[in-house]
Structure formats: C-alpha cells, structure tokens
C-alpha cells in the first residue's frame, strides 16, 4: 500500500519507538499535523515557541536517554529552532528535528516562509538533510536516528518540503543503516588502555576528570568502580555532574572558573589526569599554558576531534567511555598487590586538607536570603533526588556548586552554548519523560524571561514542574563581572522594572509564591513540591551575592579569588540603579 510522506513520517517515528514529540504547526506541515491528529500512539506537545520545543525535546532526551523529536514549520518556525539545536550540538544531545519546507518547485524563489534551514544549521547539527523525494524519506529518517544516537551524540535536522509530505510511495522501513563515512570507534585500543593503567599504577597524585561523556554513554557505574578500587579522586566538569556521587569522599567538586579549591589545586598538582568524556573546555582549563603543568594526560573520548584540541595528551584513547572503562575495570580487577589505598594515602590527605582550608561557602547578610541557601534547601527538600535544570549565569553555577548530584541524567544544563532560557522548557521535557520525578528549574529573573511563555505549556498539561527564581533583579553573572572587572559600572544589567513573577504565574494559571524571608524558604519549597500544578517560587534574594570562588578570565585555575567583605569602593545597588535606570 502506498503511503503519503506525512503518513510515512508518523510510521517511521513509531518504528523508532517515539511516543512524544514537541512542536508547533504551520502552513507547510499541515499534512503531517493532520495525520498526527488521527492517531493515538504519538503524543504531540504544543509549546508556545519553537525554541521552547527544541529545549523541551532536549530536556526529554537528557532525562530519558532517548532521542528528542521536534516538528516545526518552515521559515520562522525553522529559524526559531536554531538556538535549541546549537545548544544540543554543543552538549552532544541526540535530537531529530523536522522542519517543514516550501514545495521543492518553490525552493530558492524567496517563497513565503522560506528559509534555507539546511544551510543555516549546517555548522550546528551533526548532520542534516533536505528530503527531495518521498521515496527517500523513510531511509533518511532511519539514518537520522542512527546518526543522532550513535558515537558522539548530537542533533540531526530533516527538512521536509510540503510536496514530499503529500506525495505517495510504498513504505519500507530499512532494518539497518550502513554509512561508509560514519563508523565511530566504539572500543578503545586495548594496548592504549594497558598503557593508561600502567601510568595509573605509577602515579602518586592522580585525578579522574570526567565529563558529559560518562553520562551520555552510561559509564557512571564503571567510573564508580574504578574510583573506589584505585582510590583516585574524581572531579566532574559541569556536564559531568551526576556522573559521580556529589557526596562521595573521593569527590572533589567541579573544577574550573567557579570550581572548588580542592578540584582546581588537585588538577594543578596532579602528576596524572585521566580525562573521561570531557573536552577540556576553556571554562575548565583557565589559562591553557598554565593548566596542569605537572600532569601526564590520558584522554578517553568517543570523538577524536576532542582529543588534543585544547591540551596536550600523552595517551589518547578513542572509544566509548563505558566500553573503555569496562575494559579498564577488567584489567584493574586482574591486578594483584598494587596497594592502591596506601599508595594514594598522602595525596588524599593533601586533598582533605585543601577541602578543609577552602570549602565551598557563602556569606549571609542579615535580613537577606542568600541564593546559595535556596539551592541547599532545594537539595535537602528533594533529598538530592530531583531532576534539576538551570538557566545560565549565577543560578547555574550556584546549582552546580551546592546541589550534590547523585546520579546521571539528574542535572540538565546548557553547558557548552550557555543558553539562557534553556532551563524551563528543558524542565517541561524532563517532566514529560519522568512524570513521577520532582523537577526543579533553578532560574534567574533574567533568564526565566527568555522562555517564560512555556508556563502556558506546563499549565495546559498540569505539569508539577517547579521554578525557583533566584530573583535579584540583576543579570547577576554579568553584574558580577562588572563589579569585579569594570569598577562597578552596571551597564544594562539592572532589571528593577522586571515583572511581578507571582502575578505573572497566576496569569498563566500556575501557582506563584513569593518568598522574601529566609525562615520561609524551606516551607515554601516543600509546599511547591506538594502542589500538583506548575509552581513558580519567587525568591527575593540578596541582590549582590557573587559566585565564588572565581578564576578571572585568562588566569590559571589556581589563581582563584574568594568571597570578600563587601568593600567601600563598590557602589550600592541604589546608586547603580540610578546610573543605569
């Protein structure tokens, strides 16, 4: 029987086991929406903006481990997905994004709602397609899912001209994919793994530095085994948080610009760094020439382009993190008489000393709520088990520092691209993927406004998503830089005219709760969790709290600055407001 392109689209999604897609209709995808309307197996979530749809699919993918799927129309519908796609690309999140396109005969004619989305997204997708003929549609969709979820994961875009969705052909879904140009190396070279182990045996001050690859490949259990067996301390990049229990004695915290003293000093003093699924982002390394000067580097990564990109690597191992760590574990288990614990005793004592000297801490001011305290209370109230998304800026860093993540796929944040407006739609996607989990978006008053319209989506589905706005009426992270490096000139960072978030939440049909006193914080969080509706908690926090410690841009990561008493030189907020309006 012949099926239309639109019907084939739906059949292919069913074959891929897709049950939820996020999207927004429009002219050229009407045929697809018409078919979607006549079936019950795939649920379509209508967001209020296409960017929200992509972030929601991304949150769904990060929380569930399954690829996220998006469907939008051509032109502006397609261009609105770009930030979401770039976000997923930077963090290696598997997505398949379908954009409608004007009919083949009109492409290139500046037709109504036409955009060359394949051209636009070429540098921010893992791969993309323009399907020119309905007979190629099924095979293209099969390839897209394969590419998105194989090797280093990432977003794939399929552009579907309207006539392709109308035309009919015999539906055959290929059973497998064979792409000559796409054969990722999944198993690390055994000789290299043995070399890595022999370095681990010799090292006196080793550190395991792990990133998003551990989460994406499901390597957390293998990692835990290695750390416990060898007594090597672990630091997680922002993307790697949850890959190792945040309250484990071997955990150093996050390294880098807002990393812990112990993590940064450990990397700087290490004689061996075993990097697993981490790409040595500039926010981790700080000044690259001064990074880990004493360390031999073993780098395990599925993507050869990540290796030696930023730092020199002595033992490169291209392979899937889980497979490679499993091999490493086998070799470690076969070892006898290494005496790992005694060997690393002095090193671990040194680290314990650093942890004691400069723990993560924050200053509380009388009558004000410290934003870090809010994060700590969310951690306590959720027993460390919630799915936490963040926006970008201070809210993101405080969450990374003070919520002790336990398991993978628990912390959803835009690490690479740093997309404000990511957290809330991602929380919606995560809640769809995990309806029984408690989900919090820890947000700032700036970034929550970048996709606030999705309150309507959350309320429509009565999602119990919680938003904790750390409301300081500033674009806090930029303000912090202006305070520290631009002599307190708060240029365009003051948000005093921002909306009344409680009323705003209520206008959308959500519950709004304002919390202005420290003593009310724990109860408000508990109340929000108990309410089976979308809740926005507006925490009126200390306006000029800073994320500390901090490594200034261009400095080595052991050149950290710590919280100081607020100096006289600094302008008061009131003065700052006057200057910037």
């Amino acid at each position, binding site marked *: 029987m012949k099926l239309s392109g639109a019907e084939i689209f739906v059949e292919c999604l069913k074959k891929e086991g897709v049950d939820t897609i996020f999207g927004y209709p429009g002219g050229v995808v009407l045929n697809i929406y018409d078919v979607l309307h006549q079936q019950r197996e795939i649920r379509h979530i209508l967001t209020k903006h296409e960017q929200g749809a992509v972030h929601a699919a991304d949150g769904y993918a990060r929380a569930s481990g399954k690829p996220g799927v998006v469907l939008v129309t051509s032109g502006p519908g397609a261009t609105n997905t770009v930030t979401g796609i770039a976000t997923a690309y930077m963090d290696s999140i598997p997505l398949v994004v379908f954009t409608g396109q004007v009919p083949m005969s009109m492409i290139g004619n500046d037709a109504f709602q036409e955009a060359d989305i394949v051209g636009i997204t*070429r540098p921010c997708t*893992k*791969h993309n397609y*323009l399907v020119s003929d309905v007979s190629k549609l099924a095979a293209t969709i099969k390839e897209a899912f394969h590419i998105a979820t194989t090797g280093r994961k990432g977003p794939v875009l399929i552009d579907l001209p309207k006539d392709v969705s109308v035309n009919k052909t015999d539906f055959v879904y290929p059973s497998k994919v064979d792409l000559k*140009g*796409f054969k990722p190396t999944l198993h690390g070279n055994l000789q290299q793994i043995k070399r890595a182990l022999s370095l681990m045996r010799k090292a006196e001050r080793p550190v395991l530095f792990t990133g998003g690859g551990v989460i994406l490949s499901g390597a957390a259990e293998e990692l835990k085994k290695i750390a416990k067996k060898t007594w090597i301390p672990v630091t997680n990049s922002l993307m790697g948080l949850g890959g190792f229990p945040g309250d484990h004695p071997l955990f150093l915290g996050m390294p880098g610009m807002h990393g812990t003293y112990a993590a940064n000093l450990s990397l700087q003093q290490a004689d061996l760094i075993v990097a697993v699924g981490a790409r040595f982002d500039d926010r981790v390394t700080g000044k690259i020439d001064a990074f880990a000067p004493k360390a031999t580097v073993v780098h395990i990564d599925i*993507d*050869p*382009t990540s290796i*030696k990109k930023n730092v020199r690597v002595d033992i490169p191992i291209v392979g899937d993190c889980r497979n490679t760590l499993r091999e490493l574990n086998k070799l470690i288990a076969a070892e006898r008489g290494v005496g790992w614990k005694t060997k690393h005793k002095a090193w671990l004592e040194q680290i314990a000393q650093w942890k004691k000297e400069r723990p993560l801490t924050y200053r509380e001011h009388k009558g004000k709520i410290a934003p870090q305290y809010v994060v700590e209370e969310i951690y306590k109230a959720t027993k460390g088990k919630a799915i936490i998304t963040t926006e970008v800026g201070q809210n993101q860093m405080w969450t990374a520092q003070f919520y002790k993540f336990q398991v993978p796929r628990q912390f959803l944040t835009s690490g690479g691209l740093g997309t404000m407006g990511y957290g809330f739609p991602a929380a919606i996607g995560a809640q769809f993927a995990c309806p029984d989990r408690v989900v919090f978006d820890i947000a700032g008053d700036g970034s929550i406004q970048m996709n606030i319209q999705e309150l309507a989506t959350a309320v429509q589905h009565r999602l119990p998503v919680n938003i904790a706005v750390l409301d300081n009426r500033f674009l806090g992270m930029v303000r912090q830089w202006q305070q520290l490096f631009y002599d307190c000139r708060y240029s365009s960072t003051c948000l005093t005219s921002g909306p009344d978030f409680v009323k705003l939440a209520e206008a959308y049909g959500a519950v709004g709760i304002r919390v202005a006193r420290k003593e009310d914080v724990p109860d408000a969080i508990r109340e929000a969790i108990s309410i089976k509706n979308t809740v926005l908690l507006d925490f009126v926090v200390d306006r000029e709290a800073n994320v500390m410690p901090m490594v200034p841009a261009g400095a080595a990561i052991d050149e950290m600055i710590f919280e100081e008493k607020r100096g006289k030189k600094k302008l008061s907020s009131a003065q700052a407001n006057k200057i910037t309006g």
Partner: protein
Amino acid sequence: MRHTISVLVENKFGVLARVSGLFSGRGFNIESLNVAPTLDPALSQMTIVTRGDDRILEQITKQLNKLINVIKVIDYSTETDYINRELVLIKVSAKAEHRAEALRIVDIFRAKVVDASHSHYTIEVTGSEGKVNGMISMLKPLGIKGIVRTGLVAMSRG
C-alpha cells in the same frame, strides 16, 4: 604552513558546503579547490590547498573525517611522496613581435597552443606548481590577457 588535503566524499548536494564550511568557519582561506567524480560516480575526489597553523589544520582534518559524507582524508603535507599537478590555460599576446618568443616558451615548457587568433594564443600547460609559475613569469613580458587554473590535484606515488 601550506597543506594539500585530499578528501574523498559522497557525490551529493551540500557536501562541498560542509567541507568548505570547516575552513571558512575558522577564518581559513582555501587557496585552491578541485572537485570531480571518481571512477565510482557516487563518489567525488576533492583536492584542497590551504595555508594555516598546523595544529588548527590537524583539527580541521579530524573534523573533515567526522563529516558523515566524507569517506577518506589525506593531508599530503604529512606524506613525503606524492605527485601534484595543475592545468592552466593562459591567453597571451600573439602580436607579430611576440609570436616567435611565445612559441619558444611553449616549447621549453612542453606546453601546447590550443587556440590561436590574430591577436592572441591560448596556451595549455600542465605540471607542478613550480613549472606552471615559471612559465607564467616567462610569458608575462609578452602580455598575459587572462589566466585560468584548475588548482592542484594530488595523488600518492606507488
């Protein structure tokens, strides 16, 4: 450093844009680029000549390998033994006083006159870049009206 990179790709629309995007996205100019189908019409061979920092070019080569439509990448600057050739068409003045000299140069460089008019000869020359540049500098005093180069093509020896 100058690099000659050979890229075997799928013969499909958009592939050239993916490949060139990896250079342009890093602010690298492509000095010459040659693309044509291979024996298997489903594949095309590209030869790209570019200049840049070795470390960044290593990154570009790895990124090229990562493209789904790319089958194989060879950076000839890391290989010692390869042949490179270029074909050039040169339109040179053929006024009475220049003709003999033009033909002498054609002879020396084992080139060919492929078109002639009262005012101009069109010369075809094939060879390594050095040879081609040598010939061009010899012809310059006669007056070159136009020149078209294919860009280098390269192949390993043996």
